[in-house]
């Protein structure tokens, strides 16, 4: 109550009115507090869901360049990806020559890897999800998003901040019991005006920061305003990072569920 008292414009008010206002403010404050807990978590979830849907579309077809940057060397690869909702993802490596034609398929919680040199698909063990993807700072889970940031976590608003002049919500994601997640918790920064994820911090189960994702270069991609550049920065290796740049993106193109099959991995060119 003392907090409320100090912000009231006290000068022109009688002491009686001051007391009434203080009481009303107190009631409102308490009410707000009671309402805010469920309302905020619902809002937080909606904000994440909206940003996730904005980024993903019903379907998406994208081409990306991925740069792995280390103090003494760097490598670049290009990939093409197809997604449908949260459950179906296909990623095909298009360069360099050595890895060209490698395909990853995700269906719900399962992931397969097509290796063109031996013309075989390999089902990945679940432990592979937390491993780095093809030498980058992204994990397999980042790429195929086995876990859903909407359904596999509980959400709450942890604060506000500004990124590149954009006002953002800072949202805390806590894994749900039994969800197949590789992180102990995640913080997401989402633009208040446009549904854009601008920053993410990934913590392990011991609450140690592992990776930070920074999104930038916001522009129109596939008819939507989106960040075209993402940088994944590992916390314990300050001199290295992985940069992901969208070069083309198309949303809501009809894609049949049967596109996302083991059989079709071998058909992709």
């Amino acid at each position: 109550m003392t907090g409320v008292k100090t912000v009231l414009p006290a000068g022109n008010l009688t002491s009686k009115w001051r007391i009434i206002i203080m009481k009303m403010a107190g009631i409102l404050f308490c009410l707000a507090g009671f309402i805010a807990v469920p309302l905020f978590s619902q809002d937080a979830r909606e904000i994440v869901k909206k940003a996730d849907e904005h980024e993903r579309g019903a379907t998406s077809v994208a081409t990306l360049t991925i740069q792995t940057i280390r103090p003494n060397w760097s490598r670049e690869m290009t990939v093409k990806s197809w997604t449908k909702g949260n459950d179906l993802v296909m990623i095909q490596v298009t360069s360099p020559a050595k890895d060209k034609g490698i395909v990853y398929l995700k269906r719900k919680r399962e992931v397969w890897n097509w290796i063109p040199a031996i013309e075989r698909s390999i089902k990945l063990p679940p432990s592979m999800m937390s491993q780095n993807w093809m030498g980058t700072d992204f994990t397999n889970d980042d790429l195929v998003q086995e876990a859903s940031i909407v359904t596999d976590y509980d959400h709450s608003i942890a604060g506000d901040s500004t990124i590149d002049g954009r006002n953002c919500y800072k949202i805390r994601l806590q894994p749900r019991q039994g969800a197949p997640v590789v992180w102990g918790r995640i913080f997401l920064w989402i633009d208040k005006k446009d549904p854009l994820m601008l920053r993410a911090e990934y913590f392990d189960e011991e609450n140690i920061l592992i990776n930070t994702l920074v999104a930038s270069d916001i522009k129109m991609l596939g008819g939507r305003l989106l960040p075209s550049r993402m940088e994944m920065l590992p916390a314990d290796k300050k001199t290295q990072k992985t940069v992901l740049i969208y070069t083309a993106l198309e949303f809501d193109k009809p894609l049949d569920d049967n596109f996302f099959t083991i059989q079709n991995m071998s058909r992709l060119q």
Partner: protein
Amino acid sequence: MIFLLTGIFIPLAVFPQQAKEQYPQFRLNGYINDLQGLSFPERWDSLSTVNLLHNRVNISAQFSPKLSGRLELRNRFFWGDQLQQVPDFGKLISEYNGWSGLSKIWIRKKKMVFHTVADRMLLKYSTGHWDITAGRQRINWGINNAWNPNDIFNAWNFLDFDYAERPGSDALRIQYSLPGNATWELAWKPGQRQAEHIAAFLYKFNKKKYDFQFLGGLWQQDLVIGGGWAGSIKNAGFKGELSYFHPQQIRDTTGTLSFSLMADQTFKKDWYLALSVLFNSNPSNLVSGTGNLFGNTLSAKSLFPFRYTFYAGALKAFSPLSSLNTAIIYSPEKHFLILFPNWSRNLSENFDIDFTAQVFFSKDLSGYKMRGSSFFIRGRWNF
């Protein structure tokens, strides 16, 4: 035949830059390797060497939205005194157990052999749920990383590390995909003789986060039935395959069971471990010298010559550019042991080097000792 095909494909492949929607479209890729090998058969003072310059050219063509083709050529130029130790080395490497040869030995001298083989040459017609493939192709039904009893068309030797693509089969294959990630498959590999035909079906489906498959058919002079799975237990992958071969004269009771199990898991700090066991109910127990790297006659029925063979593999990635992969193969029979480490390093985007060793030990009347060892250094440029 090869001349004819390269004659048609290569000029087209050189000028492929047409608009994407136009057909035909062509793609060209491949690699050039140079492998230097040192071998010590049983004694360290009896060194022999071989150098292998190895080029692979893959040409693929899309003739229409539904019709595609592939031609893949494997050119190998061997020289060194090790060639003399293998009786008729040129003939051995040019033997291709198939309907047609599609290979040519250009040079066949005591210490020098130059050989070309088309190990893929196929046409594929894909429409809706159907894929029909005819020609030399790889019909890869295996699941396990080390031993594949289900790979009944074209079994491979995992000691042959310089042949990632593995041999193909001259066959006709019809695949039909069903909704929900399931497939029916029929394949026929005609033999040159009656006793060499292989014809089988495969049904693959996915249930409860497991891939399952069942197969059955004719396998040379046998009937074969088999199956396999790929799933997980907690964080580890769990896979298995088995095939049972029985002579077509059912009264004959000499069936052979080939069965492999595998578990694999990744760990922190970029470690990956895989364990596997192979059971062969009808072992030959023959131990040849140094793993026979350049040719083999193994099959899904006899993937390794012992009743039980164990495999342990550990891969440690030091960085995205450098990794050490060590495999140990052991059988209680004669305490047969192979140590198979490989260290690889990526030097630039398309250039890699690696070092590989294969050291063989076993026990006989003279005691337990090394039966041979080979060391290889290889450089590879991909294009």
